[in-house]
């Protein structure tokens, strides 16, 4: 399986334990290139832990993670990022010290292209400026793309919660990722805003970026996911297309409930 070129990400038998809590137990799944895959499950099921294991924030205790057929389990987040993976966080984590602006935040996403050094900063300022200007242009375009046009000089702390989310997304896109991990990106958006957000995600996919998304908003999940994996108490509960999952009795009991609020399959 892992040799297959269809899969950009392959997670094999991953285990993660915290002080007696089995956050992930023998989880395996794959994400196909160009797909949007959703990772869902009850609170505390281990979804964020899984994203952390993949992105290197908290490496798995055992098991393997392959990104484009390359083993990445145990690598540091920066190495993994250089291989083309980027992510957002469940609670937004923006850079705010020293009055860093929205633009600064997005430009940070270009780090791996700029790759600055002290020597360059001191003695080759012209060359650095040029690279920086190119990046700036791209950053402004991305801000426009996510809908934060004109906010580039604001301080991230003054944006509303939802806009901070969008900023995080722009910053991640700036790294030109091949695979994007999103942790509950739609939380805090109202039903109307969710609609435009869905469009945004689809546009990102159309740029050729694969997405693995953790989300509780079933409207989003059912609308955009090509396939879904469900975790419960650290174990894989089910995997399949949105139709299959929404009919799966176990999933309904453990997670979806009566679905009277939002979940409708609209594909």
């Amino acid at each position, binding site marked *: 399986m892992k040799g297959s070129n269809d899969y950009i990400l392959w997670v094999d038998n991953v285990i993660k334990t915290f002080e007696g809590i089995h956050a992930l137990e023998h989880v395996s799944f794959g994400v196909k290139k160009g797909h949007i895959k959703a990772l869902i499950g009850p609170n505390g099921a281990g979804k964020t832990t899984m994203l952390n294991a993949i*992105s*290197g*924030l908290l490496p798995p205790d055992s098991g393997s993670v392959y990104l484009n057929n390359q083993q990445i389990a145990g690598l*540091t*987040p*920066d*190495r*993994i*990022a*250089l291989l083309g993976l*980027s*992510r957002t*966080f469940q609670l937004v*984590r*923006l*850079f*705010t*010290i*020293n009055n*860093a602006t929205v633009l*600064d935040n997005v*430009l*940070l*996403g*270009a*780090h*791996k292209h*700029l790759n*600055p*050094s*002290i020597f*360059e*900063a*001191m003695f080759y*300022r012209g060359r*650095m400026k040029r*690279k*920086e200007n190119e*990046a700036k242009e791209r950053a402004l375009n991305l801000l426009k793309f996510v809908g934060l046009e004109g906010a580039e000089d604001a301080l991230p702390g003054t944006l509303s919660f939802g806009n901070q989310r969008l900023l995080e997304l722009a*910053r991640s896109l700036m*790294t030109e990722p091949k695979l994007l991990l999103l942790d509950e990106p739609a939380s805090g958006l109202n039903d109307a805003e969710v609609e435009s957000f869905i469009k945004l995600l689809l546009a990102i996919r159309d740029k050729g970026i694969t997405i693995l998304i953790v989300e509780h908003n079933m409207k989003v999940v059912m609308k955009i996911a090509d396939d879904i994996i469900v975790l419960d108490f650290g174990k894989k509960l089910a995997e399949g297309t949105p139709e299959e999952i929404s009919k799966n009795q176990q999933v309904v009991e453990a997670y979806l409930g009566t679905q009277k609020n939002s979940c409708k399959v609209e594909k």
Partner: protein
Amino acid sequence: MKILSRFWWILPIIFIAIYPFTLGGNSPYKSGVLIFVGIYIILAVSLDLLIGYCGQISIGHAAFFAVGAYTSGILTAKYGVHPMFAMLIGMLISTALAWATGRPVLALKEYYLAMATLAFNEIVITLIIGLEGFTGGASGLGDIPPFKIFGFSLVNHIHYYYFVWIIVFFIIAGSLAVVKSSFGRTLIAIHSDEPAARHFGIDSPRYKTRLFMLSSAFASIAGSLYAHYMGFIAPDDFGVISSVNIMVMLYLGGIGTIYGPILGATFMKILPEITYQFQDYELLINGIILIIVLVFMPKGIYGIILKAINRVLRKV
């Protein structure tokens, strides 16, 4: 007005340039005070890179100050090495030390990091004291010759004054170049949220170590300048207390701004030259002045000045 806001930095340079012949009145004491100010500006600015921009709290900056001073002192006084080379060797040693200790030490966070750097400072000092045959021990190391450059000895206090300040300006300019570049932005990201920063391909241990090396090299230069000026150095002036003093300069001036620490260092070094008349009350008065500054200028002296300038500009 516009010209002023672009080229304001010329004013302090002019001030420094004409000081020895105007306010300084050609007095070794008055230019001496400014030489010390310059040396401590280097220390404060280099520490600001580390603390203010990268968020790596260090209470051991004086250790590198000591390494620079002692390398220069020992090599020139005992082995007759040219001061220029001695200074370079000091920088090399400091940088190497920073490189060697950087990874493990900077992996620590906040107070633990503060603690480890404090320990590092103490280790350097106890070694200087312990290896008395080599360093002069606690009694100090004397007979350090004045600085020489292109065969020209800077015995005259005015020559040395200019020499020091030229270096100060280069270091300030270098530091500004670093923090205003994308390198500086990387530092800010590490400072804000290091784990998140790593997700953008920032190899933070490497960046932190690099910066630590730069900051140490600057501190080492300050040490060399200090040694050649004092002619005599003793471990008393390189202890943890000195490191803490440098830190106070940062916060007093306004951290993470480069300009702030410059003001802070100037303030801290000039203050005792004014309050010494209070004799027994000097300590209390210095404390109270510091407190007043901190209470009324939460963003430091630089913050207040910036605010004032903005207010003036808005009126204009």
